[in-house]
């Protein structure tokens, strides 16, 4: 199966930048990127994360990198690397970025553009345990694996241990750049 692994890995890496699959994703994205609604953070927000969210809402502050409601986390599922020693595009020290990722399309409220987001897990240490977020815009069941987030995206790394998830911008959705 090694050949299959390699094939899929290349394909998935390419999805973010070039492949024809991107076109399909963006078409879906264009249909669905709507107004700046805020979805509830589900279903595992009963810990410190929920409390932090409530505090921010009370202060009426704009969501930032450590908030589940931050725009680029629209299809996030996992611990925010921003809360674990990394950032929205940096893995925490001593971990390794996943070789494969799922892809989201999120609208940046600052410029009104839709961006392709690569949700890479950071791998090699046990779960970070801070800022668990679960949002699912344009997320789909695993028969659409490239947009599925109920699976461990460290699965292709030497250590598949899941630590946290980041959300890196990889480009503007077609027709907007």
């Amino acid at each position, binding site marked *: *199966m090694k050949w299959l692994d390699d094939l899929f890995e290349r394909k998935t890496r390419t999805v973010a930048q070039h492949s024809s699959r991107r076109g399909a994703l963006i078409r879906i994205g264009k249909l669905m990127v709507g107004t700046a609604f805020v979805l509830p953070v589900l279903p595992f927000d009963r810990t410190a994360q929920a409390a932090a969210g409530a505090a921010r809402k009370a202060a009426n502050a704009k969501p930032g990198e450590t908030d589940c409601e931050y725009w680029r986390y629209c299809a996030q599922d996992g611990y925010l690397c921003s809360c674990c020693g990394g950032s929205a595009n940096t893995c925490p020290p001593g971990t390794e970025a996943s070789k494969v990722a799922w892809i989201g399309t999120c609208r940046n409220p600052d410029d009104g553009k839709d961006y392709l987001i690569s949700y890479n897990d950071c791998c*090699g240490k046990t779960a970070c345990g801070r800022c668990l977020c679960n949002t699912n815009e344009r997320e789909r069941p695993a028969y659409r694996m490239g947009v599925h987030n109920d699976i461990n995206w460290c699965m292709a790394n030497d*250590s598949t241990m899941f630590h946290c998830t980041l959300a890196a911008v990889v480009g503007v959705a077609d027709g907007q750049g």
Partner: protein
Amino acid sequence: MLRKAFAGSLLTTALTLGMSAGALAELAPESITTGQLPPPHPYRIYLSDVAIGHIVDGRLHVIDGKRLSYEGIVATGYTGQVTLSADRKEIFVATTYYSRLSHGVRTDVVDVHDAQTLKKTGEIEIPPRHAQSLNYKGTIRASADGRWLFVQYATPATSVGIIDLQTRKAVAEVATPGCWSILPAASVGGRFSTICGDGTLLTVSLDDKGQVATQKRSAKFFDADKDPIFIHGEQDGDTYRFVSFHGDVYAARVGGAVAGFEPAWSILNAADRKQGWRPGGYQLIAQHNASGRLYVGMHDKGMEGSHKTPAKEIWTIDLAAQKRVARTPGTNAIALAVSQGEGARLFAYDGVKAAIAAFDVGSKLSLAGRLEHVGETPTQMELH
């Protein structure tokens, strides 16, 4: 000063305890034993929990759904996927272990546990590709005749591992690109179907050595771009039933070499649509086969991305009449399971409060009780 007062109160307590103990018979010395599960019954719940906060150390919670009591645990390792054997006597857990907990040599196995003693009885080594997924029913299934165990693999290329349960060996791997979830046939042991992103089912038939005899793709039966179906299906013999993100019901027949389908229909009326009612959750439907009732976790004000929302209501659907017959408060359900036969009970896992609600199933659902504080991040229940 405070410390002194505390010491004084301790002394008083000790004296009081000593005096009262003297007035009672002494406790007999106790011998320590290991408890046993009550005999198997249809209300025993196996709740699969990846425990994401310490995901290397997942667990299966075993719960008595009749008395609503916590019975025991099975350790499931790293993203372990769980199913019961066809005779319900064994628990199979496909999982990953590293030699140094989070790194080192990866070994994937199917751990075998006795479903009555909860003791580990063996293991079957499999290729290091088991799907490290949240728990869903279709990631590991036994064949209806008990001969085979089918395990979902993902690298993320997708394939299905075939394990011979007679020899306890992994004997084959079937590439199933673009497809996910294992739907064994009831009438043919060596046959399963899997759901593909192009809206078809791929049906794999095996020979008696577990090798692929045929692979046949069905006609397209749903449109993953317009209205994807949820991956969790409910089984009645050779028929699996699904719901879509927008509330259509699909039924697939998987007994033949090529899957066939019944026409789709909607559980929503015009008013429901206007209010944005949609299905949501993980194991979001449960079906009681004899009565033809489908229970669906539903939320209103649905929108793109709301498909994992805990249930605001549980809808009871009459499958023959194709209409809703009851609405029940949803208890934040993200997973539903119903026992079959007489005296059915529906169990709903409350994903917000981490609890199990039990409903007695009659002409309507009546809440029989709740078990609070169970599980961390479970998504799937199986009943004995």
